[in-house]
């Protein structure tokens, strides 16, 4: 049984309400206030998350802290159960941080010139829902928020996206919605299992942890959950919605999509698939690791051949998500650590990469790789940002993704050197595409007459980049700050749920 500590102040629900209320204000007030209100709303939420980070008791990070509980339907034991354990905490922080960055970025994004009110409402609401996703300890309420995040994104892609936006919006919605129907069936089936074993229905995560499933049912339920999260994550071969969605979404949309929405998949794999079906997890582990490694390598290859820089970054996201899933299903302490830290790190680097693509688009009005040659030449500050992000994404020591990749290899080595080598090959390819991108941006020559007119990055955009650069460097040099957050949760999962170690 997971320990639960009730909070004195409902921090979690407040950090869901603040963006929601700001969204309401944006609707009610005039359009020219929209930007200011959204920045204040998202900023306030970020400050609340900092307070939560400060107040969180790191010695008990396996316990669910700041716990709130409101009954929704007694008979089925559906409750709005919100709280933060170590794992939720880091995802919650990621959400508030990246949402703020996305909104700060949009303020000066020239792509966003119509229907401003709806735009900011979409982003504020999606922040609110995402906080709900990462803090729900009721599986049905989790599903509600999980699905709700789709709607703002559908609008963000469909209204403010690029040329093929409608096609991509459809594809995105249909892929995710249909796959999550399997999840809904799984959730319903799990609660029915609770009825068979304990005599009443329950959707509470804590209640469901106490179930033990027979082998067949366990694997069946695991797969029902897995389909939804594999599409969301995404894993090859379920990834085809992602390049389209990312390629056509507005910059801030891609940022939220890549940095947070994809993490919902891996977070849920760890929280629900591993948590609720430990036996099935151990049984299916080799397949999952194999899918992860295939994803890494396949997506890396796909990345290198992309022509469109946004699709390039999108495929690189897929390959990073492959790392996360591989590490997750290695099921040892180093692996889980690698997976969670990489979730956060990839949130930072992918957000930064998409913002780079958006920034260059504003200057050059193209996403074509060929036309980007040498484009950072006369923008020194921007060039530094690009370099830091790219090296961090590549996994260079001192960058954020280093720990993820290094620890994955370390944990794979505990099984066999062949496995570690496979992961290493994946890492090699991911370094290859990052280097290729750096070469295009920095070293290739282009007529300098256009480039010389470019103004360097400044103002809101610089600030939003800085919000990402700080954590990138911080993870690189002080990883224990982050490991401290969730180590307790991970050992709880390993020791009490999986019974390993």
């Amino acid at each position, binding site marked *: 049984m997971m320990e639960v500590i009730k909070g004195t102040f409902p921090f979690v629900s407040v950090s869901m309400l603040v963006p929601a209320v700001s969204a309401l204000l944006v609707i009610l007030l005039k359009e020219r206030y929209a930007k200011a209100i959204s920045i204040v709303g998202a900023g306030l939420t970020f400050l609340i998350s900092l307070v939560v980070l400060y107040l969180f008791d790191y010695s008990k990070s396996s316990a669910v802290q700041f716990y709130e509980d409101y*009954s929704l*339907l007694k008979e089925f034991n*559906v409750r709005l159960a919100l709280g933060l354990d170590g794992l939720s905490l880091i995802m919650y922080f990621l959400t508030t941080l990246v949402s703020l960055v996305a909104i700060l970025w949009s303020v000066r994004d020239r792509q966003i010139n119509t229907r401003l009110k709806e735009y900011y409402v979409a982003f504020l609401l999606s922040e609110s829902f995402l906080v709900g996703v990462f803090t729900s300890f009721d599986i049905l309420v989790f599903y509600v928020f999980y699905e709700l995040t789709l709607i703002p994104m559908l*609008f963000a892609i469909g209204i403010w996206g690029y040329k093929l936006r*409608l096609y991509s919006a459809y594809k995105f919605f249909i892929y995710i919605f249909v796959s999550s129907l399997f999840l*809904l*069936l799984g959730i*319903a*089936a799990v609660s029915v299992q609770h009825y068979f074993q304990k005599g009443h*229905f329950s959707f509470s995560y804590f209640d469901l942890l106490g179930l033990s499933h027979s082998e067949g049912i366990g694997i069946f339920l695991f797969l029902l959950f897995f389909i939804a999260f594999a599409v969301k994550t995404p894993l090859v071969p379920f990834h085809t919605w992602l390049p389209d969605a990312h390629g056509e979404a507005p910059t801030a949309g891609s940022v939220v999509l890549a940095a947070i929405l994809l993490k919902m998949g891996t977070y849920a794999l760890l929280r629900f698939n591993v948590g609720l079906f430990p036996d099935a997890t151990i049984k299916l582990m080799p397949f999952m690791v194999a899918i992860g490694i295939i994803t890494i390598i396949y997506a890396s290859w796909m990345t290198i051949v992309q022509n469109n820089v946004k699709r390039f970054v999108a495929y690189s996201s897929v390959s990073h998500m492959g790392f996360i899933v591989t590490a997750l299903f290695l099921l040892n302490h180093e692996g889980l650590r690698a997976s969670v830290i990489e979730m956060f790190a990839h949130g930072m680097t992918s957000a930064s990469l998409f913002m780079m693509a958006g920034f260059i688009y504003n200057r050059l009005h193209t996403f074509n790789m060929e036309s980007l040659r040498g484009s950072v030449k006369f923008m020194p500050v921007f060039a530094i940002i690009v370099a830091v992000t790219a090296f961090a994404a590549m996994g260079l020591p001192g960058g954020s993704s280093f720990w993820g990749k290094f620890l994955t290899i370390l944990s794979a080595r505990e099984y066999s050197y062949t496995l570690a080598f496979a992961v290493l090959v994946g890492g090699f390819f991911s370094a290859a595409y990052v280097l290729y991108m750096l070469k295009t941006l920095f070293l290739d020559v282009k007529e300098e007459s256009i480039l010389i007119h470019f103004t360097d990055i400044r103002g809101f955009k610089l600030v939003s980049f800085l919000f990402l650069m700080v954590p990138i460097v911080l993870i690189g040099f002080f990883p224990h700050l982050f490991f401290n957050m969730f180590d307790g949760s991970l050992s709880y999962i390993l020791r009490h749920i999986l019974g390993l170690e």
Partner: protein
Amino acid sequence: MELQQLVGVIELPRLVLFLPELIVLITAFVLFTLELALSKELKKIILPSLSAIGYVLALMSIGVSAQFKGDTFYGSFTSDALGSLVKIFALIIALTVLAFAGRYFSSKRSFYGEFYYMLAFTLLGAMILASSYNLIIIYVSLELVSIGFYILTALLRGSFISKEGAFKYLILGGLSIALASYGAVFMYIYAGSIDLRDIFTYQGKDYHYLVLGIVFFLIGFALKIGAVPFHFWLPDAYQGAPTPVTAFMASVGKLAFFIPVVRIMPLVQEKFSLTWTLTVGVIAAATMLYGNFVALVQKDIKRLLAYSSIAHSGYILAAVAVTKDIGMKAVIYFLVVYAVMAAGSFFIVAMLERAEGWENRVQEFSGLRFNLPYLAFGFMVYMFALLGVPPTVGFVGKTLVFMALSFDQLWWLAFIVIVSTAISTGYYVRLVVLMYMKEKEKDVVVPQRSYAEALSLVLLTVLTIALAVVPEVIWSLVAPASETLFTR
């Protein structure tokens, strides 16, 4: 003395159980008389307001009648939680129909006084149908509802599709009633009783009569609720009927026609339940797949919503296949909330139809957000609700269906629900995309909007979300409705 014996068994009807129906009955007759007597100008004001007063009084009287449970009229009329729940929603939706009907008909440059009393009689039929186990009463009230619907469908005398729809409905509806009564006869032969409860608890030897009876009875009702392959009348009738009437048919009609089937669910015996599950399950699977596939290619919004109505019959039937408490709760909840969603979406179409040059084409929804932001928002909520996106009632309904199906381990049916919902994503999301993400094709102006309409739409839209977000409210009505039937 025989006479004394006869007098001895006469019991006074407990009219308090019958109070809501009684009020609607009186309202209907008053409306009927006034329609003959009054002048046209007076009728336009008096008939709708009198109906509204009658329905509100009936709604209030449910508060009284729900206090008492039991049978009256010699067991032919049963007042229980299920009946009360159905009546509450039937009356609320009937009230909202009144709000839309007047302006709809005047936009067609006509006024039909008979609309108001036919609506009242149909409502009365639906209310009685929802609260009886007696085969004869079921037959009579079924006829009452159906005849009301035939006439209401054909109300637009000048329109060809209205007449065509009504004619198809009349013929197939007549067939369905014939089949249902034929089934009733077999059930009577089996048990020698016309009370469904007696029939299903009777341990007779001529088992095949019961099976035959149930099959005919079910086919009769399958015709009424538009289950595949008995659905052919439905799209035409829905398209042809005046749109407020379509809303009433899709909501209250469906609700009422399903109730006798729901009442059989707990009575299906152990040895019998596998047959029931398979039969109903196969019909459900066919219905939802067919409904969604065909809806995908519709160009007319009313036909699209009609096929979506067929598909929803399928989802509900899938839960009917599970003859357990959870299955029944899923059915009742889904029925009630589908009534709300269907009524709301058809009402919005009814309002749009008043606009100049509106032809009900799906394509005309392009950029509706720029013309009519509030209506577009409402329609979006209904589309997401019908699709089953949280936090709307459609989502809770689907969750309950999934719970019911996994309770009986009907995985194949659950997967068919998933597949057909996946298909339905195509047309529901398309409407949202058209409204919000496409440029507008032409200006759409709805003339003479009234507060009553706005209020009704707000009420239905709020219900669509509130019944899911705060489910405890409706659950306190749904749970006893199912549990009293199962513990009997």
